[in-house]
């Protein structure tokens, strides 16, 4: 329930906007007489400088995306006009149609979808198997710390180091050019941050909630599925979205462990446009747009958790 708003007395001064309300307040309130001092003028100068730097950065960050989108919508003919047009005169989705529908790359899209969903499933189940006992069961503190720090160290393992023996192992196991190999590896490498994230969410759910259910005679199993899991769903959703996006973006393992459209992922599809003898720019751009759109859209949903996940919970932020 919302607390009742405090109304100003009739005729009195209007209430100040609540702290954190999305109201553009230009700086902290400064007593009027201080505004004309030298510090005040320098403050306004600095403010102007920062705002124009941010404006410049906005161009540096937005324009490249805009240029890719614009290129992807150009008919092939228009790619060669000099100087290039900023926005296509005759925008068309032909490049998307040729690259995705007509070509082989919709299969890669499907492969990526399967790999990402399966990775999320495997990684989250395994992560729960670690995060639940270390937050809910009496596990020795040494084991808990050791396990968490071991998981953290995996984050720093350079992928190019393990990729060589993994390639040899995967080939020996008959998993070369199979989606299963990618799923297992992506799940393994997203496990560390998934555990750290779920651990954070689990610690925020009070023990008493579950204990109450246990006292009422529910089994630990039932308490987990009926009580804890629903309360954990925001955490699972956030960790799932980020796992999905990371698996979607992965390139090196896919490059080395796949050979044919049977198991190639979308990242490989994007890259293969670059290696062709004559690059078809609008199609390459179209692939780039699709490749960027998926994680950007997903992570805007989970944006509050991105930094926290990438830094293993060192940074808790709000946005």
């Amino acid at each position, binding site marked *: 329930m919302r607390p009742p708003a405090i109304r100003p007395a009739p005729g009195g001064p209007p209430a100040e906007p609540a702290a954190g309300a999305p109201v553009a307040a230009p700086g902290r309130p400064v007593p009027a007489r201080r505004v004309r001092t030298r510090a005040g003028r320098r403050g306004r100068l600095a*403010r102007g400088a920062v705002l124009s730097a941010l404006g410049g*950065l906005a161009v540096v960050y937005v324009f490249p995306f805009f*240029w890719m989108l614009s290129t992807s919508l150009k008919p092939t003919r228009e790619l060669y006009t000099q100087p290039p047009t900023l926005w296509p005169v005759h925008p068309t989705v032909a490049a998307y149609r040729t690259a995705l529908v007509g070509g082989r790359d919709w299969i890669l899209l499907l492969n990526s979808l399967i790999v990402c969903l399966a990775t999320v499933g495997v990684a989250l189940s395994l992560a729960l*198997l670690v995060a639940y*006992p270390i937050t809910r069961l009496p596990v020795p503190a040494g084991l808990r710390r050791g396990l968490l720090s071991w998981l953290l160290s995996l984050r720093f393992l350079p992928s190019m180091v393990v990729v060589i*023996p993994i390639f040899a192992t995967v080939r020996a196991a008959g998993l070369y050019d199979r989606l299963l190999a990618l799923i297992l590896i992506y799940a393994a490498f997203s496990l560390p941050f998934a555990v750290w994230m779920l651990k954070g969410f689990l610690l925020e759910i009070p023990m008493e909630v579950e204990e109450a259910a246990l006292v009422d005679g529910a089994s630990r199993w039932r308490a987990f599925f009926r009580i804890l899991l629903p309360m954990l769903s925001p955490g699972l959703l956030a960790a799932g979205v980020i796992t999905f996006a990371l698996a979607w973006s992965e390139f090196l393992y896919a490059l080395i462990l796949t050979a044919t459209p049977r198991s190639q992922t979308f990242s490989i599809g994007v890259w293969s446009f670059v290696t062709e003898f004559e690059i078809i720019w609008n199609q390459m751009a179209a692939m780039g747009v699709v*490749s960027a759109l998926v994680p950007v859209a997903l992570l805007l949903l989970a944006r509050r958790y*991105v930094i926290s996940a990438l830094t293993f919970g060192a940074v808790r932020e709000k946005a």
Partner: protein
Amino acid sequence: MLAAPVLFLLTVVVYPLVYAIELSLQYYRLGGFAGLHNFLFAFHDRLLGESLRATLVYVVLAVGVECVLGLVLAVAVQRTVRSALGRTLVYLLFIVPMVTPPVAAGVIFRLMYIPEYGILNVLLHGLGYPGRGILWMSSPGMAMFSVLSVDVWQWMPFVFLVLFAGLSAVPGDVIEAAEVDGAGGWARFRQIELAYLRPLLLLVLVFRFTDTLRVFDHVQVLTMGGPGSATEFLSLYLYKIAFKFSNLNYASALAIYVVIIVSVVFALTSRYLSEEIA
């Protein structure tokens, strides 16, 4: 309960590492125990030296520029952008490049850097730059600049967002007390904010160091290590040795050197890191 995930990680991650040690101790093609042959060969490998030099330049410049720019920007934005709307806009502006797949970022910059079609050369031409513009990807110096620019573009926002979040955690009354005592902007940064930021700065440095050391994806899209070996960073060199020349033995030996370097960095910093993280 813990056994399943641990066993899973042991097979998928740790077993290959053990296998890498085994591979590195064998002769290429001939097999058989080679002792430290592969490890010693690295010291006579001229191409490895070039790759290491390029990697060093890349790591130092990328990490340096990202951290300095990110820090300056975080402090500046923290002090000037006060409205919730403004802060949300800044956050959105910087979160999007970070979550863009590196391959897509490579495509984005490839489109800007193509000599004939790329918008940068068109702009340069408009400004009166002589000739046909700059060869962004096919002259050695510019190729290094081009791959570096993508890294800075994508990951300076990471540094910024982490440090910005750190600055927001500085208690307001501490700042106010300092202002009452007459502390200027610089003193406020040096004596208060830096203390709060120090652990996060370490975290950002370690993360960016380990990530730039293994840079691969966008380089593969932009220059593929070229021209010559100007941007053939360590991971691209390893990739070539292992999968173009199929010398898994020598590649494994080099990989183990990298593991040792990264482990040392991790061992030196992990105590401070997990203090911060846990």
